[in-house]
């Protein structure tokens, strides 16, 4: 699903690369935690997968495509296969829950009949039935993140990127979000999640990739957060 082959990313005006000769592979259907301190390269890793950045050196393969050789006009097609969730939810405040989810389908030109059918379905999957007409500011943080996950998942992506999705949530709410991501993973979507949340990583017991200073310092299936240190 994701293959990094000797990937180095050096940002302009910086001496130390954000990622340094990283090689790793993530298989289809995996659930992977990306851990490490701030500045260790987690965000760069995710941005490279989304083709928001290009590697300085090396190759990034996502869903069978080498992203360096992907022409600009094909990037939207790549991103339609990838759902993304962020720490800050990134919802549109002037749209309702249902409209926020529908927006993701409208802007890729899906027909209205399709949208009317799948939006209620996905809102049920994330447990927001009955709140379709609420606006984001009327929801709790956990509920807002569920809307964001619904939006990321509504197009049934083969890969879900979650950048610290529980970073703004309290532990109890985070558990609910993790159960939801686990469920999405079991529906066949590969999930890559960066996090600082030790309790969650220890509890889930999934593959853990730890980055530090741009290097992979640990890659462990069924890992915990702080094993190596």
């Amino acid at each position, binding site marked *: 699903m994701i293959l990094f082959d000797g990937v180095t990313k050096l940002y302009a005006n910086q001496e130390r690369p954000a990622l340094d000769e990283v090689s790793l592979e993530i298989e289809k259907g995996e659930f992977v935690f990306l851990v490490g301190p701030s500045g260790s390269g987690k965000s760069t890793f995710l941005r490279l997968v989304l083709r928001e950045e290009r590697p300085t050196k090396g190759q990034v393969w996502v869903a069978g495509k080498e992203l360096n050789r992907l022409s600009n006009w094909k990037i*939207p097609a790549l*991103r339609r296969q990838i759902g993304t969730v962020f720490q800050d939810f*990134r919802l549109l405040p002037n749209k309702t829950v249902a409209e926020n989810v529908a927006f993701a389908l409208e*802007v890729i030109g899906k027909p209205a009949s399709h949208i009317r059918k799948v939006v209620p379905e996905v809102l049920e999957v994330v447990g927001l039935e009955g709140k379709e007409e609420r606006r984001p500011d009327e929801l709790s943080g956990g509920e807002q993140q569920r809307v964001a996950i619904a939006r990321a998942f509504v197009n049934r992506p083969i890969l879900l990127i979650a950048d610290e999705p529980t970073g703004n949530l309290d532990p109890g709410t985070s558990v609910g979000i993790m159960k939801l991501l686990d469920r999405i993973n079991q529906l066949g979507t590969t999930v890559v999640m960066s996090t600082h949340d030790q309790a969650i990583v220890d509890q889930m017991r999934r593959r853990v990739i730890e980055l530090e200073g741009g290097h992979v310092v640990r890659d462990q299936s069924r890992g915990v957060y702080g094993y190596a240190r």
Partner: protein
Amino acid sequence: MRANFVASEVSSGIRRNLTMTMAVIITVAVSLGLFGASMLVRAQVSTMKDFWYDKVEVSIFLCGKGSDTPSCAGGPVTKAQRDQIKADLESLKPLVDSVYYESQAEAFARFQEQFKNSPIVDNVKPTALPESFRVKLSDPTKYDVVASAFAGRPGIEQVNDQRKILDKFFRLLGGLQLIALLIALSMLVVTVLLIVNTMRVAAFSRRRETSIMRLVGASNFYIQLPFLLEAAVAAGIGAILAVVGLVFVKIIVIDQVLATSFQFTAFVGWDAVLAIAPLMILVGVGLAAIAAFFTLRKYLRV
């Protein structure tokens, strides 16, 4: 493509950015109005040329008693000279369309008619006015052929082309048209800069939407289309206002004021307005779309 969705995005974008959109509409209207006006002046000049060049004549004035040009050194024109000139003019057909001889008596009668309210008539005697040939050319631009054949010949005092007098007037109108066009062009530059700025503000105020659109894989075309349409709609409204203004100029200024005050000449017809209006709309909308497109390429990158 979901037309409803795009339409609602465009209308909400225009409402959100109303003051800037109004500014775009007004500058587009003013600059295109000037542009249209300068095109109209041009059409007017060409209408007047068609009208007047058909009527202008070349006048060949013959030597009279008081003539002092070298070609008149032999005194007033003789009958033989006059007959020869007439025969030579006739031989220049078909360039020479018609030749009319005006005697001193006829010239005096015409002079009296033209200046009948002026005391100058009392001081001019019939013999002071030269006799002349009035020559009408089939192609008025070939004046030089006649001039070179007759100017300086014994018995001919002067060869005059009325077209030269008209040309001075047309040059004045042409100059006015050029000034209007230059102002219109600089206004169009202002319009483009304003559209560029408006698009920047619009792209910034909707950066949440566009960043989400990018993430979920909307194509560039889909992300930029509402902005492009917004610019095009604003420019289109401005262009329509400019066309309405042009129609008013045609109805009120030209048909009701100028045409009734200056009945001796022809004025542009509706065909000129009909030719200019689509050009104005095309220039306005096209310019706005191009300006928006290049701005968005910079601010809404994948």
